[in-house]
């Protein structure tokens, strides 16, 4: 503490320790929050094709097309509703949300298949009220065989990762999913 450098050193070290404590406080104030939100998924149209999958097995695989409606209000959580600019899900430990719609189903070869059909990044300050109509899936819904045809139970779930400033990366599954059967026959019309 006798020279400028030693004072600067202890000042800097102390500030860093305080900052680390604050970051931990930020984590601990949000760690036990329940972030589940009701989700409403509705599937408008299902189409099934049998096409060559050049990336997977050297056979024709099942390719599903799903048109869905999705409505979810992620600002459902009300813990500290003092800010007008950001909805409460964007508490001070949330940078962004990564939402994705995934399909889960069982086939003969695998007990659990998970395919991500669609995703969306919601940044701070963006609208967290999603109301989407007639959405087409962003990614191909390929099965690694022929497990989609006549599959009775294909479950669509919306989940999201909460990207935090500090701490764990919670994976939240929206409460509310839809299960649907897939058609028995392939679509044969070649319309590109």
């Amino acid at each position, binding site marked *: *503490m*006798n*020279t*400028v450098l030693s*004072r*600067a050193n*202890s*000042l*800097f070290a*102390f*500030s860093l320790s*305080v*900052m680390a*404590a*604050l*970051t931990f*406080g*930020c984590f601990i*104030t949000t760690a036990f929050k329940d972030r589940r939100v009701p989700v409403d998924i509705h599937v408008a149209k299902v189409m099934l094709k049998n096409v060559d999958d050049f990336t997977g097995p050297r056979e024709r695989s099942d390719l599903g097309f799903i048109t869905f409606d999705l409505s979810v209000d992620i600002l459902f959580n009300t813990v*500290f509703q*003092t*800010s007008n600019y*950001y909805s*409460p899900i*964007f*508490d*001070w*430990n949330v940078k962004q949300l990564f939402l994705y719609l995934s399909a889960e189903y069982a086939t003969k070869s695998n007990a659990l298949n998970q395919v991500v059909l669609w995703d969306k990044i919601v940044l701070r300050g963006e609208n967290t009220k999603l109301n989407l109509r007639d959405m087409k899936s962003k990614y191909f819904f390929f099965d690694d065989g022929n497990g989609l045809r006549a599959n009775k139970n294909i479950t669509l779930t919306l989940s999201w990762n909460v990207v935090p*400033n*500090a701490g764990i990366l919670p994976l939240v599954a929206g409460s509310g999913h839809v299960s649907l059967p897939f058609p028995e026959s392939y679509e044969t019309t070649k319309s590109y």
Partner: protein
Amino acid sequence: MLSIFKSIPTHMDYKGQKLAEQIFQGIILISAVIGFVYGLIIEQFGWTVYIVLGGFAVSCVLTLPPWPMFRRNPLSWQPALPETSSESIPKPQESKRKKNK
């Protein structure tokens, strides 16, 4: 080049050093509490960081330069003794110094 910096007196006396440490710890802790509460209310951790950085800057200005308030209690050194040839003198001198502290 370095000798120029070394020639600038930056020292504080002991009480000044204690005061400087108390000042920067107090300022940073207070700004941390304010920043924590403010960030929690407006739900933005960035503002917490900014407020702590502000406290850091203020305490840098207050405690890094050796302001006169940190030099109010200079140590009273014994006056330099003239060089003597006898060896018995240093011992009583040391005990005297301890008493003064």
